[in-house]
Structures are given as C-alpha cells and as structure tokens.
C-alpha cells in the first residue's frame, strides 16, 4: 500500500508539466539557504525528474538538496501549473531511503518511532506527563464524544505542554464529554511520511484509527496542524473514509465561541502578531478561525505579519527539517521573528506546537524578548 502511495513515478506528469517558470523560487524559505539552483523547488523538480529517468542515481548529494525543504507548501500554492512539488519531494525521499541515500539522522528518527511511537525519542510512558500540569484531572475514558489528540509536540515538548494544558481547560470550560487516548496515542505518522521512512506508516495509521474508533467518539480534535492534515489527507488516502469528524482546536474553539458555549470574558492585555502555521493555513486553508478567536478576546490587539495567510513565512520546523538541519531550522525561525520587529508586538501567537517550539528556541538563540504563545493559551487566560 505504501509503495503505491509514495511512488515517484506517480508524479512524472507533474514534472513534465513544470515549465521552470521559477515563480516558486523567490519566496521559498529553504531555497534561500542554498545558493545553487538545485536547492530551489524548480531545481528539485529537475533532480527528481533526473532520478526518475535514471540520469542521476539516488545519492547523498541529491539527498542534501531534496531534504533542503520544510514542505511548507509555498511552491504548491504558488504554482499556476498545479505541479505537486512537495508531494513529489516526499516520494523522492522515499526513493532515497529505499536506496540508502537518506541523511543518517533519519535512522534515529525511525528507531524512535519503532521504539517509542514518537519522533522525539522520548519514552512513550511520558506522553501523558503534561496532564500533571493541568489544574483539573484529565479524563482517560473508554467512551467519549470527543477525543483530544494533542500530538507529540504538544504532549511531549515543554512549550507544547502549555498548549495541551490550555486546551484541556478550554474543553472543560465548554462542558464537553471528552477524553485523551493516553498511552494509546501514537504519533500520527507524518514524520515518517515527510522523511521518506514510509515502511511502517500503515502500522501507525491503523493503530490510531483503532484507538479512536474504540472510544465511539464522533469528533477528534488536535492541537497539531500536522496531525490535522494527516488525519484528513493521508489517513483517507491510506484507508478510505475516516468515520469521525477531525478538527483543529482553533476550529472547535471558534465554533464554541460563536455558539456562546464558550465565553472568553476576562481581558487579556497583549499586542501580538498571528503566525499562520504552514500546514494549517496555506495547506489546509484554515486562516480565519484563529483570527476570529483572537479578535473575540477583550484587550487583545491582533497585528498581521506583512507575509500572512498564503504567503506566510515558514517558521523552519516543517517536515523533518529540525531533524536534518537543526541550525538552519532555527535560522528560519529567527527570520520569522525578525519580521515581527517592525510590528512592535509583545508576542507572536501561533496555532501549532511545533511552530511554537521552533520559534521559542529561535527567540532564545537570538536573544529576542518576544513571547511565543499558542491561540489556546490566550483563550485559556480569558476564561
């Protein structure tokens, strides 16, 4: 099944259609890190085509170019010719893995998956550690209407845990019948797909679907835009229809506020810019719910980055870039932080635990005083 889904040959017509117009190049975040044409999306298409045609063999040099990408989807959105560049890159990475030409750091990533069911290499038993930080008891029920699926970066990283805790308080305040899956939650599998390590994707998909199904939940809500996209796109591609509703937390909160089931009554005095996570915004087109939420909170002043929505700059953490090129991932994060300076904001607010982590670490590295927060943290403060 995975061979069929992540086959470079499926993108042959995309590569043929690409007329090298170059519109994808100027704002590609990682293209700017590599001065050679081969590091740009247009060049990556040429490399993929050459690999497919046998003009070049999969090798470490090709890998250095094809992994020089956060899969932020800018090229995908920008391309008038509808060339599926990022999808082709994922398939190209699967071929590099098959031929043993992938970056070595990905072997460790895969081993983390197999051993601990997450990309971070943290013990699976620590997946619920965040619940101890919550003010109320976090439910782990056999049956519930809503499953909260924090995702690895919300459940297991320090900046992410604040998102999970805030989300729990929102779900409680709205009076929902909800549960987490506890240690039955495994990574959604995106890092396997993004890295080209696709051999075990199906195991993760099947496991998570089964775990959610057993709760009879009608809705799965996640803090993580990757999980949101994966459940929507990849799970459907792999197993057909998913028989529960999948929401990003900002969509649920937006609904709860508009239907008056959640009343953000306290003032939150903060001036902040909203950073669109690539997966949530440009790729899944969820632009307005987070903005509507923030605008509904008294005292909160929302500012926009000059590059916002479809043209938002990637924070640097997309795909497996933090695993293959950590220093440049932080460099891209610092660039996004720089873009906030003229806005004179106290904070950058996002809706993705991975963006939060990367921006947080980038801010620390460059000594920026800007706070990095999640939309849910602002909402939780207003309750």
């Amino acid at each position: 099944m995975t061979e069929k889904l992540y086959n470079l040959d499926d993108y042959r017509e995309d590569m043929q259609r690409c007329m090298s117009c170059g519109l994808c190049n100027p704002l590609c975040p990682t293209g700017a890190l590599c001065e050679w044409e081969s590091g740009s999306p247009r060049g990556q298409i040429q490399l993929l085509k050459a690999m497919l045609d046998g003009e070049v063999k999969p090798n470490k040099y090709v890998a250095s170019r094809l992994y020089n990408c956060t899969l932020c989807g800018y090229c995908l959105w920008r391309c008038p010719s509808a060339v599926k560049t990022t999808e082709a890159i994922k398939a190209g990475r699967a071929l590099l893995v098959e031929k043993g030409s992938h970056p070595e750091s990905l072997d460790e990533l895969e081993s983390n998956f197999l051993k601990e069911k997450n990309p971070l290499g943290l013990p699976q038993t620590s997946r619920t550690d965040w619940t101890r930080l919550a003010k109320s008891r976090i439910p782990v029920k056999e049956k519930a209407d809503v499953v909260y699926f924090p995702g690895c970066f919300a459940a297991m990283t320090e900046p992410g845990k604040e998102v999970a805790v805030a989300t729990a308080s929102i779900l409680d305040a709205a009076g929902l019948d909800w549960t987490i899956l506890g240690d039955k939650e495994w990574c959604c599998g995106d890092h396997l797909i993004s890295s080209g390590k696709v051999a075990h994707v199906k195991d993760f998909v099947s496991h998570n679907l089964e775990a959610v199904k057993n709760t009879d939940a009608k809705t799965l809500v996640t803090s993580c835009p990757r999980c949101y996209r994966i459940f929507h796109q990849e799970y459907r591609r792999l197993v057909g229809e998913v028989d529960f509703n999948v929401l990003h937390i900002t969509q649920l909160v937006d609904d709860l506020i508009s239907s008056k089931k959640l009343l953000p009554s306290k003032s939150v005095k903060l001036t902040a810019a909203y950073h669109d996570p690539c997966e949530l915004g440009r790729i899944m087109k969820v632009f307005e719910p987070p903005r509507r939420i923030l605008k509904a909170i008294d005292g909160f002043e929302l500012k926009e980055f000059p590059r916002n929505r479809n043209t938002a700059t990637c924070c640097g953490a997309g795909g497996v870039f933090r695993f293959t090129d950590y220093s440049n991932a932080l460099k891209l994060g610092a660039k996004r932080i720089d873009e906030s300076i003229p806005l004179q904001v106290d904070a950058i607010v996002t809706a993705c635990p991975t963006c939060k982590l990367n921006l947080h670490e980038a801010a620390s590295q460059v000594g920026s005083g800007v706070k990095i927060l999640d939309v849910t943290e602002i909402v939780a403060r207003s309750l």
Partner: protein
Amino acid sequence: MSKLEEVLGSENVSARTEELLCYARDSSIFVCRPEVVVRPKAAGHVAAVMKIANEEHIPVTPRSGGTSAAGSPLPVIGGILLDLSGMNRILSIDLDNQIVVTEPGVYCDTLNEELSKYGFFFPPDPASSPACTIGGMVNTNASGNRTIKYGPTRDYVLWLEVVLPNGKIVETGSKTLKSVSSYDLTRLIVGSEGSLGVVTKVALNIVPLPESYSTAFFIFDSVEALARAALKIRRAGMVPEMLEFMSRTTTKVSLDYAGIRGVPEGNFMLLDFGGPPEAVQAYLEKGVELCRQESPSYFETTVDPAYRQSLVNARKAALPALARIKPTTVMEDCTVPPTKLPESASRIERIPEEVGVPGFELGNFGHIGDGNMHPTFLFDSRIEEHRRAFLRSLDILYEQIVLPSGGSVTGEHGIGLIRAKYVGIEHPSTLTLMRDLKKLFDPNLILNPGKGKGGPYPLRAAEAII
C-alpha cells in the same frame, strides 16, 4: 576548472551532473546542459571568468533568474554557465534624482517592494516579475502589462556597468538624466540578450506610483470583437495603465488559478487606469462605454485594490496556468501593428485547426494594447507528430501571419534559440551589420553563442533539440 576555482573559490564552481542538469532549463522547450557552472559575486569575478574563457575560446552563457521563454540563458554549445543570481543587491536608492542602482540578480518584484516604501516604482511589469531579474530584463528589454503607458525597460536604463567578452569592465552612458556625449551604447546593450557583454550593474530611472486605480474587465465571445474594443480605446487617445487580454482557453485556467469564480467563459480583456481618483473614474466610464459598443457578453468594474490585484494576478499567471492543460507549454512573442490585431488574433486562433493534429492546442494572451500577443502552443513534446506540428505552427505564425502584417517576431522576450531562424527574414538589410557588430564586441564569438541578434545561429541545432 582549476583556473575558475582559483578565481571564484571551489565553492562557487561546479561540474557535478546534479547541478548541470538544473541549469539546463529555462521556461522554453529546450534543454542544454553546460559543462561547468560558476557563481560570481562581483564584476571582478565576471571579468576574470571572461578573460579565461576568451583566452581559451570557451563559450560563456550568462543567466540570473533563468525565466526566459526563448532559451536565451541556455548554453546551446556547452561551456561555462555564469550564474549571476548571487549578485542580488540593491546598491542605492536616490529619491532626489529618482535613480536606483542594482546588481543584475535582483528580482523585479523585490525591487518594486522596496521602492513602494517610498511611493516609487520601476514600471516595466513582466508577468514573470516575481521571478525575473533586473539583469534579464535589461538583456531582453523586457516589458509587460504596463508598457502601454510607461514603455519598456530601455526607457528607464540610465547607465550600465558591463564586462566585455575580453574581460574589460566598461561603463556606458552618464550619471545624469540627460546626455548625448557618446554613442548610445546603453541602448545597444539593452535587449542584446547577453550577446555583447555581461551586465553587472544597472542604473534605472524610477517614477512615482499612481495615486489610485480604476479597473474593468470584459468577456467577449470573439477575439476580433475584443481586439476592436482595444483599438477603440487607443483611437480615443486614452492611455490605460493596462490593456490586456486572454483567449477563452487561457481565461478559464487563469481565473481558476486566481480564485475568481462566476465569470462566464469567453475571451477576457482587462482595462485599468491609474492616477488621481476622479480622473481614473472618468476614464474608466468612457472606456467601458467604448468597449460596450463591441457587445461584450459580460463586464465588471472595480475600485477594490484586492479584487484588482486578483485580476492582475490572473493575467500574470496566464502562461504557467496554461501548463495545466497539456504536458508541454511553449509561449511565443509576436507583435503586430495595433490596427492588424483583429485579423491577426483571429488567424492565430485557427493555427491548430490548420495544423490538424489531434491534441495539439493553443491558448493566447498578451498586451493587446500595444499589439504584443503570446500565442502559446499546448502539446506533448514526447510525441513526434506534436513536435512537427509545433515547428510548422511557428512557421505559420511568423512567416504567414506576423511578418506579412508588418509585425515583429519578438516584442519583449528576445530571439533566444526559438526565433533565431526568423531574424534574417525580418531584418534582411541589417543582418550583416548586426553580425559585424557582434564580432566587434566578441571577436571569438564566445559570449552567449547562438542567441540574440548577432548569430551565428545554430538553426538546425535548435530544431534538433526540440
């Protein structure tokens, strides 16, 4: 290689297959691989490379954005590919004298984004403005959507720093806004497609941005009616900011890409005025009245900047959006006298029918206001019959439609490889002079051989590559 590495550092020189194949493409149909790619960072680097190449008679092909639709930056006979994209600094913005100085690798939109902070812009507005560079625009004398009002790139180039094929660095023109103290070498270099020298610095005149815009678009059932409407605008003495068109096929895919829904199918014309609000509104009303005399099936007007931008985006995306239709997309670049537009546009529409090959199609679009059309052939270059149909279509387009109507084989994209065959037909009396001029600048014929106006043209080679 070792001499090049000595000059540029080994990190700026590559002969790896993986790199060479990436530089073997532009937006044309051709694939020509260089033997080595070098990345200079300064005019001195370029000069050193040219000196080595000239001494050893190695061909050199300059490139920056690599967006040419004509094959201009492709190394048709191998040699050195000079990638100038790393020379991408805006060197100075002088608002008092209204002059900006840049390196060749600056993107057109990047420059305009910077200039807009001061209320200025560099007007030539190619559809490829996000990805094309100032160096490429100078070398093709690029124009675009706003040329009808502001003219092409050459009208803005004040002086140039150029590296000659022998490695000598020269400056053309004068630092003043007016000067007739030399031959106009600046204008000779502009549009020369990198065949006479390598442009390493550009001084451009800039102008204030219009205060506001007023915009309309129309859908016509036939291209003739659309072209007649465009002529009426010209005859009325009106000077729009943009007067653009897209044929039925192009309209469908471009509006879809730009997310513009609910517009009936047909041929699209964009009419845009820039200036003080009261003036542009009055011009638009008059323009709409004139266009309605040609019975458009649909029209809309807008002063909403976001909607206007979507319409402009749709028009700018025309070429790559057409690539959704067929595996191969090749754009042409003809101009005809505006009075010949209705007849020529209609005749161009019938080329696929005339060629009669199933699956071989056409989309057209362009700057109807100044008679510049971009017939774009849509086919599958992997099919021999389609390749033959394409070459026959070029002959019909240029030899039977464009040149007999007093037109030119290229309005703004240059001769490149694709149109080399037609230079002598269009310019029989000056071809020898142009070749002599090329030899004067480049006696060893090493700089961008086979392109531009000075030949020699590997005519059969170009066809063979296709």
